[in-house]
């Protein structure tokens, strides 16, 4: 299968001193759920920002859906984000003066055409059918994150990139969010989830661990059984290659 995301020797230096990513090469296939893990400052979010075309590498190549997005102009990167990527953030980033449904419609507005019915349906799917007209300030953290998820999926993107999606949530809300992720994964979406939480990472098909900007080779666990079972019962198997 052709990889959906393919990076080759991707590096990012800040001011020529701080090396956030160091020659990262990886492949992610369509429909795969990949967790990117590592300590703070290991380069997880930098990698995610590169794949989302929110940031440019210092060197290397990055193909997404067969195109090297490093060569994109600013205009092309905007179009790429609009059409191919769904973003979920740790801090939600909802527009405070728009209701839940309007926040979802905002992504439709920038993509093509706002459709209130579709936006409401997306919110119902994440269990927010009763909170459509609530402002972000009237929603709990978990509910806000579910609005973000609905917003990320509303335009049917090829890849969903989530940066610490449960980082600000309690255990109950974390469980709800992960259920939604499993549901989306089963529906065939490609997920790339940045997390420092092993419990979250272990639920992915594969883990890519970063350390000081470098990929730490990991033996992936074939955990297709998760697709048919309750994820909370799964026990991940992770083996580190000797370095």
């Amino acid at each position, binding site marked *: 299968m052709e990889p959906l995301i393919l990076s080759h020797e991707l590096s990012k230096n800040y001011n020529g001193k701080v090396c956030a990513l160091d020659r990262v090469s990886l492949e992610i296939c369509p429909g795969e759920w990949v967790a990117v893990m590592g300590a703070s400052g290991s380069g997880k979010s930098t990698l995610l*920002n590169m794949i*989302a075309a*929110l*940031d440019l590498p210092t060197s290397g190549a990055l193909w997404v859906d067969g195109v090297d997005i490093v060569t994109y102009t600013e*205009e092309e990167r*905007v*179009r790429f*984000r*609009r*059409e191919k990527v769904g*973003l979920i*953030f740790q801090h939600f*980033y909802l*527009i*405070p*003066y*728009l209701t839940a449904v*309007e926040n979802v*419609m*905002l*992504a439709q*507005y*920038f*993509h093509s*055409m*706002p*459709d*209130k019915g579709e936006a409401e349906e997306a919110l119902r799917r994440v269990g927010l059918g009763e909170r459509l007209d609530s402002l972000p300030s009237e929603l709990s953290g978990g509910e806000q994150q579910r609005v973000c998820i609905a*917003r990320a999926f509303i335009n049917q993107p090829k890849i969903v990139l989530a940066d610490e999606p449960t980082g600000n949530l309690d255990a109950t809300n974390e469980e709800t969010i992960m259920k939604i992720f499993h549901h989306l994964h089963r529906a065939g979406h490609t997920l790339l989830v940045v997390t420092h939480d092993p419990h979250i990472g272990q639920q992915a098909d594969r883990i890519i661990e970063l350390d000081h900007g470098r990929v730490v080779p990991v033996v992936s666990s074939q955990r297709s059984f998760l697709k048919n079972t309750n994820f909370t019962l799964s026990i991940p198997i992770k083996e580190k290659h000797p370095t």
Partner: protein
Amino acid sequence: MIKQMLTRLLAKSLWKQKTSTALIVLSVASAAALVSAFLNLAFHLTEQVAKELRSFGANILLVPRSDPLEVEIGGLKYVAPEESAHLEEADLVKLKTIFWRHNIVAFAPFLSRLVEIEGNRALLVGTWFEEEIAIPAGKGLFTFASGIQREVEPDSGKFRTGLKSLARWWRVEGGWVGEDGQGVLLGSQLAQRIGVGRGGVVRITYQGRTVLFPIRGLVQTGGVEEEQVFVHLKKAQDLFGLPGKVDKIQVSALVTPDNSLAIRASRIGPARLSPEEYETWYCSPFLNSIIHQFEEAIPDSSAKAIRQVSEAEGAFIGKMRLTFMLTVALALLAASLGVMAAMMTAIFERRQEIGLMKALGADGKQISLFFLLEGGISGFFGGVLGYFGGLAFARLLAARTFSLASFSLPLSLQGVILFTTLILAVGLAVVGSFLPMREATRLEPIRAMRGS
């Protein structure tokens, strides 16, 4: 749906950031108020000032076309009566039938000769002191060679005019010569020289005919008139044996300062203007176009500008307009800086929101449109607020500073002022939003979302 979403986004965004929206609206409103106030005052005051200046005398003189060269020294006219050409008194009403008839504030005829007054030589001037005349219907529709037709409203029918209206700065001790035409108004220096005063009688002799006149009042003008004696025109015509004749007519007319067209018309003559230019020139109250219309109305006359007054008036009004425009320009500049500062603050406070929009796929055009519309809407409301604020300010200023009891402009002119104010207000807000908007489009999504 896109428009609905944008409208909802804009409405909520403006409401959410009430403080910065209010700041922008107030910045624009303050400039718009000045624009509105100054436009109102410029239109209203220039008319008032022109009227005030008109109270300082006539600005047009009509004499017979074939008048011989006359010599006047110290107010005494050295010309033989038989050599003089005359205008007809009956033609005076025609002055109120021209295209710019409504701009004729006052006029008075004059017929003067040297006489003996109590053994002293002095100029006796026959004139109208305060005369009510019936204005003929006159021409209502003016058709031009360019094919354009202009209609002029008929006058009210009656018009009170004379020296009293024309020479409002004269100080008269006693009273003016009344409607009965009896008595004289004596120049104060002449009265002193011949040793007579108010209530007395003077003996006036002209070519062997002597007439006694009671002295109604003494006049001080600061000019040659203080050495003259004024009687009703009819008395002078009887005395000189010139019934129905006048030497000259002085007219006070409201005029507008000359522009390039008026200057060109003066240089090459109105006949050499193109039909369209001629029509524009004819239908503008330039001094020379009114003079031209007088000569049309009274073909035997030759009209001349009394330049001192009209030039001073034109220069003053021109300077007043320039001052208004400069002040308005400075106010607009200051307000656009205010809008820029408020917008910059708003964009700084909303950088996470802008970063998110860009991360979701908003391009530069969408971000620009959003902020320019926000600026434009604030500008519109600032313009409306400023227009009414400016109108109130103009009324206050007119009443307190310029002591004008009434302040009214035609609705059509108010519409023009409102439209101009709104266009300037929206333009100002959009221009003020331009640089902040450019900054917004340049924000890097990730850095903006992190708040850095």
